[in-house]
């Protein structure tokens, strides 16, 4: 069985790939739901006292943050996979631009939600 990437024509779905889906505009609640799924995945790996609260104001990074570098990598990967499944688009959240911002978009759930919505908006609407 052979799959050719990128697809040679747009006439149909490639065998084995996710079906092409229309990309609706991301809204804040939908993005937040994805973040909670990713948080659930991450929390399964963490000891009970280190789990991330499902609170939009939860601080993720910094001195009072819930995530160490291992947790951040896990959260980013889980979130990228969720976005891919939900929106059918592959995004890179931890790119150089995001990592070099003086105020990290990963510092709280709220900033992460806004950042993901922005990335998705760029990815789905050019």
């Amino acid at each position, binding site marked *: *069985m*052979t*799959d*050719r*990437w*990128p697809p040679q024509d747009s006439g149909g779905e*490639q065998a*084995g*790939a*996710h079906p092409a889906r229309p990309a609706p505009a991301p809204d804040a609640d939908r993005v937040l739901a994805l973040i909670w799924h990713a948080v659930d995945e991450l929390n399964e*790996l963490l000891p009970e006292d280190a789990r991330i609260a499902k609170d939009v104001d939860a601080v993720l990074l910094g001195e009072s943050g819930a995530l160490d570098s*291992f947790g951040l990598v*896990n959260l980013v*990967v889980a979130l*990228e*996979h969720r976005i*891919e499944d939900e929106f059918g688009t*592959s995004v890179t959240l931890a790119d150089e631009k995001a990592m070099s911002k003086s105020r990290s978009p990963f510092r709280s759930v709220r900033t992460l939600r806004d950042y993901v919505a922005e990335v998705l908006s760029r990815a789905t609407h050019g």
Partner: protein
Amino acid sequence: MADRPVILITGTSRGIGRQLAEHYGAKDYQVVGCSRREPAITDANYRHFALDVADEPAVKKMFTAMRGDYGRLDALVNNAGIASMNHILTTPMATVLDVLSTNVAGTFLFCREAAKLMQRRRAGRIVNFSSVAAPLKLEGEAIYAASKAAVISLTEVLARELADFGITVNAIGPTPIHTDLIASVPAAKLDSLIARQAIRRYGEISDVINVIDFFLRPESDFVTGQTIFLGGV
């Protein structure tokens, strides 16, 4: 999720990659392979993606398909590689970029995407391909040797970065083996290279398979960041 282990092998159109695909297919792995050209593998356990290993969008789409269809990746063998035999004074920049793109950037990209898939199950094996060209500092192969030295560095650093995810990263450094990769190298040059090995003979693909089998064994979960050179180099 696939109920048998999934192994991804790059560069399966010919040579070592093709035989590795057949070997692990016979061991009842689900084998996923990729190369720019179509392979002649007809094994029912084999699935092919035609792509360039340094083409990030194409590679990411392949991983998306694997995640959707198998939900797991147990092992990655970064076999795809290209060589260039040339004196520095006559090596075009296009060749330099081609070799680095396939041998270094391609290896990096596959390690990154594979680790994302492997980390879900907190287990995985990555095997990269270096070469004796790096430690032997072969003249006439500056950019190839440099690319394979980079693979060793990459392997050692990734072994540390991915250890917490239960993923081991090791490398093999083959001696010359009778494949297309060395078809254009003069026999006298190969003979002098082999004379520098502790065991002076050409490598066999079975020698490569033996080392990869070792890295992939469940009992090898305490072995990471290592490069095993064949022939006693």
